């Protein structure tokens, strides 16, 4: 999963540059009358969401958020319910109209698009998968999958051919003529996924797609997404409240709280260096050894380290390093881009594995 990782937490990279799919700048979404005024008023814009609510009765769902989503990455937006994450992802294609800020998609200013241009973006470039599937109950699986193509005006034969492909892709072959209510939740979400894939978009948005599913099915679906990402390499923006899911899928994760960005980074950055108590609390239950890479547990290279000892890349997750480290009589060298940044020894590994609850 980490092969396409884009390193760094640089949120300032230039909007519209070629390797960025979505560039969000100073995005606000305030619900209520006169929302625009609140954002425009610098004194108000200073306040926290709670204070704005108290003063004006307006609910601030997204407060001054900026980040980039790189092409091909899986970008996870994470937070508790009410943290504004679902609102945020809807602002990407203006399913919810942002109050202020900028949303650029490959150099296109989404917020300045006319209705028909926006429809084109939704029809061809960005597709979304929803928590409650949003399937049309009176249409069969194949017609649901082909719905996006149908509204683009593609003929029946062509769109059914394409729909067959994507249905196959999501593993629903043989279910084409079923109706949504004849399918399990997981299968329904596969239809939702097929529908999103049918138009071959550049970006896929997922809004808590698996939170309504059973744990086992959720695991299958997560694997499915990983597989699809691997095969198709599409940019994905994935909203979830489940940290395990976020860590499993996300190249980078942004943690939202009260409408604000709390921290952005790779999974091990969040676990290894939580920015504040909120994040720390979030990641406290995570199995650190399964998330953290070796760079978080390295110790300085002892002087007596033999030069021919085993070495591991810094991006190796701790659990994966256990056999090597435990099997090595000497501390294992940790190499990042050819440079040795330190070593891990048995004690360090065991401390992480055994003591993760005490963090």
């Amino acid at each position, binding site marked *: 999963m980490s092969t396409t990782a884009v390193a760094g937490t640089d949120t300032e990279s230039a909007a519209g540059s070629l390797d960025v799919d979505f560039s969000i700048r100073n995005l606000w979404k305030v619900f209520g009358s006169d929302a625009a005024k609140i954002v425009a008023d610098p004194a108000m814009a200073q306040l926290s969401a709670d204070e704005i609510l108290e003063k004006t009765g307006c609910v601030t769902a997204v407060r001054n958020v900026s980040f980039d989503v790189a092409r091909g990455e899986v970008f996870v937006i994470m937070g508790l319910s009410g943290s504004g994450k679902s609102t945020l992802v809807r602002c990407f294609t203006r399913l919810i109209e942002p109050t202020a800020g900028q949303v650029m998609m490959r150099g296109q200013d989404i917020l300045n698009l006319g209705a028909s241009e926006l429809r084109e973006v939704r029809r061809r470039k960005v597709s979304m998968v929803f928590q409650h599937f949003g399937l049309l109950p*009176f*249409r069969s699986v194949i*017609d649901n999958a082909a719905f996006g193509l149908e509204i683009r*005006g593609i003929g029946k034969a062509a769109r059914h051919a394409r729909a067959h492909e994507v249905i196959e892709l999501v593993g629903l072959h043989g279910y084409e003529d079923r109706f949504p209510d004849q399918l399990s939740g997981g299968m329904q979400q596969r239809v939702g996924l097929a529908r999103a894939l049918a138009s071959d978009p550049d970006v896929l948005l997922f809004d808590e797609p698996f939170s309504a599913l059973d744990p086992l099915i959720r695991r299958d679906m997560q694997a499915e997404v990983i597989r699809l990402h691997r095969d198709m390499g599409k940019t994905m923006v994935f909203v979830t409240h489940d940290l395990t899911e976020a860590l499993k899928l996300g190249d980078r994760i942004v943690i939202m709280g009260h409408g604000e960005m709390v921290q952005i980074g790779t999974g091990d950055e969040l676990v290894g260096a939580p920015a504040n108590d909120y994040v720390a609390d979030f990641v406290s239950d995570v199995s650190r050894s399964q998330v953290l890479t070796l760079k978080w547990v390295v110790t300085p290279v002892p002087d007596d380290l033999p030069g021919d000892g085993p070495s591991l890349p810094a991006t190796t997750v701790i659990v994966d390093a256990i056999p090597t480290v435990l099997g090595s009589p000497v501390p294992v060298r940790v190499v990042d881009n050819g440079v040795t940044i330190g070593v891990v020894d048995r004690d360090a590994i065991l401390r992480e594995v055994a003591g993760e609850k005490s963090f």
Partner: protein
Amino acid sequence: MRLTSASRRRYFSSAAILAASMLLITGCSSSLNTSANSSDSTSKCGTVKLAMSDWVGYTANAAVYTYVAQKRLGCTVKQLPLTEQVGWQGLGDGTVDAIIENWGHEDLAKKYITDQKVAEDAGLTGNIGKIGWYVPPWLAKAHPDILDWNNLNKYADNFKTPESGGQGQFLDGDPAFVTNDAALVTNLKLNFKVVYSGSEAALIQAFRTAETNKTWMIGYFYSPQWFLAEVPLKNVSLPKWTEGCDAVASAVACDYPVYHLNKVMTVKFAQSNKPAADLLKAFHWTDADQDTVAKYITADKMTPAAAAQKWVDANKSKVDAWLK
């Protein structure tokens, strides 16, 4: 836009089939209709639209007129069951050609005859209508003196109902008539309260129940009326009607006038010179004639058409006179 769901297509196709068959059907008229010799009903007489009120006197008039117009003149008569006011309204907009028994209705006459000049008087029918106060027969028999209004207060307590509070109940019926009853009760200083039953049916049923159960009851009624054949209500005499005694509605203290019932027709119909219009103008008979036909219909349970035929057969000369 593409609406391709199977069901929608199916609906379109079935709708198309339906529409096509409808067109097919209405396009050519039924062969039964066209094969029938239709000359007799579409003769020069044409169609007469006759408002139909529901009392039996009216039914008798209409039945005889219809029978003669159809059999002797070859007209088509369309009978439209309507309340009186709506019937007049029909005269106004031409959906009705004639009313064959009209009870006064000065307000309507003023509106449609005097002001709008769309209708005109078509002459008297020869029948007389009487509005008055009535009691069930058993009561008249048990207390004969009740038939004089002067004795009503003596019995007022017996007429009490929960509807009338502490006073005797006087029941009014058909809201189509302007009644003087409230004024009469006040001006004759009767210890009664007028209660509005709201419909003719309610009034008749009340009289019927009163007769069956031998309960006390007094109310507004009129003759001729078919119900009088079933239960011969007894009239209570009121102070005699004199010209002008009912000029001021709130000061009325006399009996209702006798109505010389007439016919009303649209100006257009009257000036059409159709034989049916002339027949309507000429139609005139006696109370005895009307009662005979009414009896055929109510007591003998004949259909109006059969009753009319029986009377016409027995009164050829009268009918011939109308047609001269």
